[in-house]
């Protein structure tokens, strides 16, 4: 450690396209790049290799070929589960967008202090343990749980929530909400209010000014957030496993069953690879959206950390 120069990065010229540094510094820079090697090794051995191995298993077990993939398409159970997962993800996404939009808008019109409070509240899911939160939902949603007591008090009678799609939606949307609120808020903050004022002064009704001016300008944030929630929902495991029921299982649970109960790594691998490809395609879409509309990117980065 003492021989190399860990600060060569700081000593080098800041702009990326600087002229070539003198030979001495170039050597220092090359040595300092070695600092990345341990982390890279860990990622290669314990992340890239296992991922490639799984891909390999999916086309070699039990026999070479794409049998596992064609079986996925042919199998009714798999198709049902994939469709259910897509539907579930779509429902969670719609719920999140419908709730997040007015919430993010509220954030843009309140005072700085209240904006801080609203932001802190929306970040609560990031702050609290996933396991503790999921357990809390199991307790709340049980047949004689708090949610049912409240529903009973207002005359909506006991409703079965634990083990149903409604319960899973309620719990999952809570986890996902920040991922929509943050990019939508970032997009809204970037909207020039004078555009709306101009539309109003030109005689547009408030509803028209909203649908024709404000809404289109905020859509990139909505699209980015919605895609993110869709992606994250597709792979969700803990909440559907504990709040949902095995009869209504989602893709991640199905993969887990393939591995733990059927010990079918070929099928599990094929499912996992499919999930991964869909995830990356959707995320690629978000990236293109955010790259062209700059503003929303930071919101997402903030959301993920």
């Amino acid at each position, binding site marked *: 450690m*003492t021989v*190399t120069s*860990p*600060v060569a990065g*700081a*000593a*080098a010229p*800041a702009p*990326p*396209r600087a002229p070539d540094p003198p030979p001495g510094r170039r050597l220092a820079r090359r040595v300092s790049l070695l600092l*990345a090697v*341990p*982390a*890279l090794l*860990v*990622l290669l051995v*314990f*992340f890239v*290799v*296992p991922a490639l*191995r*799984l891909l390999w298993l999916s086309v070699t077990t039990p026999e070479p070929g794409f049998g596992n993939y064609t079986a996925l398409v042919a199998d009714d159970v798999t198709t049902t589960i994939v469709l259910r997962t897509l539907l579930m993800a779509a429902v969670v996404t719609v719920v999140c967008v419908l*709730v997040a939009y*007015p*919430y993010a*808008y*509220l954030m843009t*019109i309140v005072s700085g202090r209240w904006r801080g409070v*609203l932001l802190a509240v*929306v970040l*609560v899911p990031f*702050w*609290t*343990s996933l*396991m*503790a*939160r999921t*357990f*809390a939902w199991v*307790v*709340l949603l049980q047949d004689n*749980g708090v949610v049912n007591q409240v529903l009973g008090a207002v005359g909506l009678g006991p409703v079965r929530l634990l083990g149903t799609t409604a319960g899973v939606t309620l719990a999952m949307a*809570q986890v996902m*909400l920040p991922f929509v609120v943050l990019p939508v808020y970032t997009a809204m903050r970037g909207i020039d209010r004078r555009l*709306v004022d101009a539309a109003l002064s030109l005689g547009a009704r408030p509803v028209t*000014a909203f649908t024709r001016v404000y809404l289109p300008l905020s859509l990139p944030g909505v699209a980015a957030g919605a895609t993110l929630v869709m992606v*994250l929902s597709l792979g969700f495991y803990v909440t559907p*496993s504990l709040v949902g029921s095995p009869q209504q299982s989602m893709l*991640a649970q199905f993969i*887990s069953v393939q*591995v733990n109960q059927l010990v079918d*790594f070929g099928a599990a*691998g094929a499912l*996992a690879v499919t*999930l*991964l490809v869909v*995830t990356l395609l959707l*995320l690629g879409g978000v990236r293109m959206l955010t790259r062209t509309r700059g503003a929303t990117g930071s919101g997402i980065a903030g959301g*993920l*950390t």
Partner: protein
Amino acid sequence: MTGGPTLRRVLVGIGILVGVWLVVPTLVVVPISFSGEDSFAFPPSSWGLEHYATFFTESSWLTSLLVSLQIALIVTVVATLLGTAAALALDRTSFRGRGALDGLFMAPLIIPGIVVAVALYAAFLGWGLIGTPLGFVVAHTVLALPFVVVNVAAALQNVDPVLGRAAAGLGASGWATFRQVTLPIIRPGVLAGALFAFVTSFDEVVVSLFVQSPQLQTLPVRMFTSVTNEVDPTIAAASTVVLVVSTALLGLVALTRRKSTP
């Protein structure tokens, strides 16, 4: 459009409902953990500390808590060292493949947990790492690295390259420059990364469920099996403990952030 009073009232109403939805459900575990009954009834009709007593004495719970703490501490040290070194190496460099490298460092964050879990499970079966401390540590380190790299890289943006040159010009060695110039500036970022690494490991469920064995379980794994297999209110005490630990640590992150941003 800034809102008539009615619109504003509706929005505030929505805001309050969302706030309740986000905050209150999680807190329900706290009163249940102090319940004197052997059920999840809410509100509890009697109070007591039995569930905490069970949590801190029954070996399956206590062991899993200790295992979680030990693994999280090791992961924090390993991920912080590796991640900080990597962020330093990659700071202000550009070369072919840089984008791919950044993508690799972020990948564990983006790829669905279940995919990482199954991949690691298949590999660990072959390597004999299932149910071993080493298996947990490397799996959690992979998941924690992105947080350290992101936080330290962000902090490095605040380091003026002139400072490094000035220190070198004054005769400081590379290591001395790092210790006395760079590190003090990036310390909040390193600290935030370390705290995130701890919480990531301490809280991780999905991958842990696959690399665990009945003999070696982390606390979230123990909680997961408790919810699926038994009706044992001890989990309320466990949830409260986890909640306090992870929320307190992430609150520390927020504090270091506030201090570091002028």
